[in-house]
């Protein structure tokens, strides 16, 4: 096919796709007026039956809590898979070489980058804890807060305090955190089965709606997800970091 014919075919196909998309968009319900009954039904359910003010948290951790368990296990296995793949390419000596290289490179980190990293690490850590702890009250929760927590470790790395990083980010601790988070979620699911008769059914006191400790199992699940996500992201990033620092082919 000549380039002109190819362009013609592509443009015709794109025009057809654009027309179909336009027709589909014109048939959408008006913004803020969903057709199904569930969107409006879920709000009183979250407030009165589940005692949480963040409706999204009630949906993700109760109404479709088993889905979230599956998602969490997907992230867990993805992190484990990536780690196994990356680690099979290197030995223990390589890891030591990577740490040496990291130390040498840290000396050359520009001072402003170090200062910004050092200044932001603390506030970002607090923000991450806040987002995880208030998951049942305000937008955010375990997933978002977990990634924010992992980014605090990244900032410590950017600050170039390598020695401290080795203390903050020992890989064993990160691995344990990831496994602990995933296990804690499954345990809460089993707890519902044992104490309330159905998996992920609430078995803790609800407390006062709007308080930090309210919503029964939802804050517990939020913390579990936060620890798991933080561990998974930190683990993937530290493995990729070792890969980037490794000298392949060096003796």
């Amino acid at each position, binding site marked *: 096919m000549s380039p002109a014919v190819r362009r013609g075919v592509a443009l015709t196909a794109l025009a057809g796709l654009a027309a179909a998309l336009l027709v589909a968009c014109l048939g959408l319900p008006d913004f*803020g007026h969903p057709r199904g009954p569930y969107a409006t039904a879920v709000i009183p359910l979250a407030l009165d039956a589940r005692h949480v003010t963040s409706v999204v948290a009630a949906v993700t951790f109760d109404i479709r809590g088993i889905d979230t368990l599956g998602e969490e296990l997907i992230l867990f296995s993805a992190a484990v898979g990536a780690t196994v793949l990356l680690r099979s390419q290197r030995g223990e000596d390589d890891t030591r070489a990577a740490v040496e290289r990291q130390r040498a490179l840290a000396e050359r980190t520009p001072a402003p980058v170090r200062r910004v990293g050092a200044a932001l690490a603390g506030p970002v850590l607090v923000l991450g804890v806040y987002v995880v702890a208030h998951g049942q009250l305000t937008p*955010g*929760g375990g997933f*978002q807060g977990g990634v924010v927590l992992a*980014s605090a470790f*990244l900032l410590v790395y950017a600050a170039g305090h390598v020695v401290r990083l080795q203390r903050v980010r020992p890989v064993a601790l990160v691995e344990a955190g990831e496994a602990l988070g995933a296990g804690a979620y499954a345990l809460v699911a089993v707890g519902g089965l044992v104490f309330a008769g159905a998996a992920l059914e609430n078995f803790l006191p609800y407390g006062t709606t709007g308080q930090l400790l309210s919503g029964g199992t939802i804050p517990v699940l939020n913390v579990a997800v936060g620890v798991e996500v933080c561990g998974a*992201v930190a683990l993937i990033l530290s493995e*990729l970091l070792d890969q980037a620092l490794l000298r392949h082919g060096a003796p």
Partner: protein
Amino acid sequence: MNPLLLVTLALVALTGTATVFVRDPARQLVTAGVFGLALAIMFFAFGAPDVALSQIVVSTVAVPVMALLTLARLHRDDREGE
């Protein structure tokens, strides 16, 4: 429709197109970050702060750092292969 929503939608279209047209991967990461921010603002304007937060953490922390580290690794392989 609220004009604010239209502006955010236009921003998403603009930054998304820009991301496609930037060819250098390292520069593309920066444009993709701006695209992610535009998406987050759009989600926020449409009343979905939860999705906006997820968008921010994924498009400004997780994806760029992982992609940068991968690029660093690939560049090193290139240099050593020469």
